[in-house]
């Protein structure tokens, strides 16, 4: 008997699988997560993988949460320890009273375990060796067998898993039956030999609703399809490659002429990030909607071109799926660390539009909207994803598209307008919003052509190095950026139940952890108002939110409090009013982390104020 009371919970726990990269575990683990979803119980899976193809440790974490918490929780209630390499560390990460499932084919000394855990040994290798002769099958079916064991341990609906196997191998039907057999080998062994179910249990629920289960990268790529992107130029880099892959896949289904089989898109895997952004800018200049997908190192390489697009005013969309930097950093770990390098990308005075989706639903929305904004503002627009949103399946609202929606192609002067004698000056601010008109190349035989350059020019695109026209142009670019403040998605505010002196600002993938942390902070006797920033430049409500609180926590996933710096810099706010809460070890931020950091801070403050008043 374990020395701690075994955890007893229904539909609210964390299962963590420890595997070896390349062992085929990923699809079995994902099937486990999907099966729980099909039972109507929300799950949030996270793939924690190395920068490696085969041999290094990998983990798959499934957070089961009837309450619908989709952020990482931290800690493990049930560890499926299939990797001897990480066994000791994996055991150490289990919560007191938790459970361990391991392969007991080879006996392990008691020193390898903890006495507060419920240890469940299943001789998985022995079972596989008995059932299968082919070494590859032994490996692959072992994964399905442990899913079968888990189905009995957690009291899962086995029919759901069977159905998923059927769906997964549709078209390769002869694989269905052996997989279902393997599932039952595991399940039967557990039922006969183990004390099933354990304290952690699954029960059918109805909390999933009509939500979909999708990766942010795929959602963003679908947004690009719906947003009318026709040119994609990219260079492989984790964690953004799957965005370009998804665009390729979506276009293959949605953008090929059924009769001619011709493509209504062009995708180029470029020679590097310099070329990919160059192609995007060339296509944008020529009137196509174009984008690239990259990560931090790619953003660094693209800086010069981004400055050109800003200064020459060419629409471009850049999906930055952020990973831990600097340099190669931790290529397969998540961070929100490119905020400054994107907001001020390139030399000289530049500012860029950033969008911060919180989940796949917004990745789709903003993925489409970015093209309207880029065309309207004639400037690069960044969609700031990260590995946590981009590469993990996340439960999110179903995608929706307003059929009456028209693309906003911005201010493009037509041949008819030119013919009618409308004045054209490429950098002429006719409407006072800082946005000039442009023409597409080839529009009119004698009117409306201009020369695009990264050097200074006057309002009619004529080269000049004189101070006054340069300043005039730079001022107009600032006017344009001010116009952007009311075009980009506004921040969303959620106030505490009672008036609070404290605010929290957060953005992007921090969202689910922050939402969950609120109740935990309240349980410690504090309350905070929340504001989720969804874009840069900041809307004026950011200033008023900060002004309306004694101080505001800024929660983000980087070391240097980059969003906080941006707020201080752009909103002219006294830095002492913004308290940085930074999480940057490469794991997704958790509610526990946020609640502790904010709770501790507010505890101290309350204690101080108690002292003062007494």
């Amino acid at each position: 008997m374990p020395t701690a009371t075994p955890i007893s919970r229904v539909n609210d726990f964390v299962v963590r699988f420890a595997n070896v990269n390349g062992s085929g575990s990923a699809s079995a683990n994902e099937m486990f997560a999907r099966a729980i979803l099909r039972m109507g119980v929300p799950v949030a899976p996270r793939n924690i993988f190395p920068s490696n193809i085969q041999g290094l440790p990998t983990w798959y974490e499934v957070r089961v949460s009837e309450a619908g918490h989709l952020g990482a929780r931290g800690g493990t209630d049930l560890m499926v320890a299939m990797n001897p390499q990480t066994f000791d560390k994996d055991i150490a990460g289990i919560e007191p009273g938790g459970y361990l499932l391991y392969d007991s084919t080879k006996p392990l000394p008691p020193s390898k375990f903890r006495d507060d855990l419920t240890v469940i040994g299943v001789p998985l290798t022995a079972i596989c060796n008995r059932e299968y002769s082919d070494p590859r099958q032994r490996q692959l079916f072992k994964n399905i067998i442990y899913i079968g064991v888990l189905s009995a341990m957690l009291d899962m609906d086995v029919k759901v898993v069977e159905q998923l196997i059927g769906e997964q191998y549709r078209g390769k039907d002869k694989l269905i039956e052996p997989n279902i057999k393997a599932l039952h080998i595991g399940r039967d062994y557990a039922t006969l030999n183990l004390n099933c179910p354990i304290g952690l249990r699954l029960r059918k629920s109805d909390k999933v609703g009509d939500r979909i289960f999708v990766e942010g990268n795929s959602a963003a790529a679908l947004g690009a399809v719906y947003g009318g992107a026709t040119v994609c130029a990219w260079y492989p880099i984790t964690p953004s490659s799957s965005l370009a892959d998804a665009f390729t896949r979506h276009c293959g289904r949605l953008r090929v002429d059924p009769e001619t089989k011709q493509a209504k898109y062009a995708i180029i895997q470029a020679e590097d990030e310099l070329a990919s952004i160059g192609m995007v800018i060339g296509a944008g200049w020529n009137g196509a909607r174009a984008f690239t997908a990259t990560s931090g190192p790619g953003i660094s390489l693209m800086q010069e071109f981004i400055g050109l697009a800003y200064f020459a005013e060419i629409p471009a969309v850049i999906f930055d799926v952020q990973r831990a930097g600097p340099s190669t950093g931790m290529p397969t770990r998540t961070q929100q660390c490119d905020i400054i390098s994107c907001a001020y990308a390139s030399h000289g005075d530049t500012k860029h539009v950033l969008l911060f989706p919180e989940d796949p639903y917004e990745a789709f929305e903003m993925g489409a909207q970015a093209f309207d904004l880029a065309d309207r503002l004639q400037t690069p627009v960044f969609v700031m994803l990260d590995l946590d949103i981009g590469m993990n399946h996340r439960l999110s609202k179903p995608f929706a598209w307003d059929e009456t929606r028209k693309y906003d192609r911005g201010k493009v002067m037509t041949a008819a307008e030119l013919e009618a004698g409308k004045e054209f000056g490429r950098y002429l601010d006719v409407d006072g919003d800082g946005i000039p008109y442009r023409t597409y190349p080839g529009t009119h035989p004698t009117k409306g052509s201009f020369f695009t350059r990264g050097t200074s020019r006057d309002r009619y695109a004529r080269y000049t190095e004189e101070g006054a026209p340069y300043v005039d142009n730079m001022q107009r670019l600032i006017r344009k950026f001010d116009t952007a403040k009311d075009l980009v998605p506004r921040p969303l505010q959620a106030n505490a139940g009672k008036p609070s002196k404290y605010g929290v600002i957060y953005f992007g993938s921090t969202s689910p952890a922050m939402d969950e942390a609120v109740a935990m902070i309240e349980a410690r006797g504090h309350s905070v108002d929340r504001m989720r920033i969804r874009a840069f430049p900041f809307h004026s409500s950011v200033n008023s939110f900060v002004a309306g609180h004694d101080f505001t926590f800024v929660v983000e996933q980087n070391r240097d409090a980059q969003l906080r710096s941006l707020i201080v810099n752009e909103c002219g706010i006294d830095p002492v009013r913004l308290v940085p809460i930074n999480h940057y070890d490469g794991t997704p931020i958790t509610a526990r982390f946020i609640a502790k950091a904010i709770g501790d801070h507010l505890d101290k403050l309350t204690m101080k104020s108690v002292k003062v008043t007494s």
Partner: protein
Amino acid sequence: MTYLAKPKFHHPELPKNSLGYTHRDYEGTVSTLCAGCGHDSITAAIIQACFDLAIEPHRVAKISGIGCSSKTPTYFLGNSHGFNSVHGRMPSVLTGANLANRDLIYLGVSGDGDSASIGLGQFAHCLRRGVNMVYIVENNGVYGLTKGQFSATADRGSKSKRGMMNTDNSIDLVAMALQLGASFVARSFSGDKHQLVPIIKAAIAHKGAAFIDVISPCVAFNNHAGSTKSFDFVREHNEAVNRLDFMPSRMPIEVKYEPGTVEVVEQHDGSRLALRKLAADYDVHDRTAALGFLQHHAAKGQIVTGLLYVDEAPEDLHAHLRTVGTPLNRLSEKELCPGQAALDKINASLR
């Protein structure tokens, strides 16, 4: 003043082409390069070629990088959109522009500093992709705008104006273009418009990646004794393999030359190139032999000029990508946005 508008008036009897345009309609602003610059002769050759072909100026997009040569697109085709991009990256901008609208003519202008150093990668990759374009390198072996440093095409052993010896090996962009799969490869000399103009015309008619290396002496920094890119040196060492006459598809073929010395090459669009062969054994269809010929003569200190290789039926990038005939920048919501019904299906597949 770095921007000079040219007066629009011209002699009333200036010849007009089939579109009714005069030569002046293909000009740009006044050149701000040094008097006598080889690049200005190339500009004149481009103007002549476009006039002769009766191209509508606005159907051309002229794209360049950074450097003296990259400034020249302002000096020709004033009614065309132009794009002076960043150093060495004209090829990527041109590739993107070409993807957006396959109907325009893409004229990429670059220099040796632009294409053979920072731009070497993009030079290589746009050729191997088969982008439908004319890629001209105005090659003077020297960095003019920064006052006379060697470029990567400067020959080993050549002397700079300040007397420095170049000890690095040179890059031959023509040999690279051949090796990389460009479907039209030529070299010419800015001082030889009779050779250069027909080559540019043929390259424009070519529906694939056409590369032209034009030796273009720098009068300020690379036109002295000891330079291998000076007017005198190039004239003395020029080994022309052929002289080209270009006939658009609509013109009748008039082969005026002695049989046996003329080879007629018909391009995919029906246009014809008559090659007056100077090197009797030279075959413009043999990529491998072209490379050998080039290197053999280079070893002897000779600069081979002329049309060195042509594939009459090239496939361009759009063919590889199977893109629709309508330019991508003209597709509307109706053609691009799959709508809610498709989204419902996608949502259903994600549950």
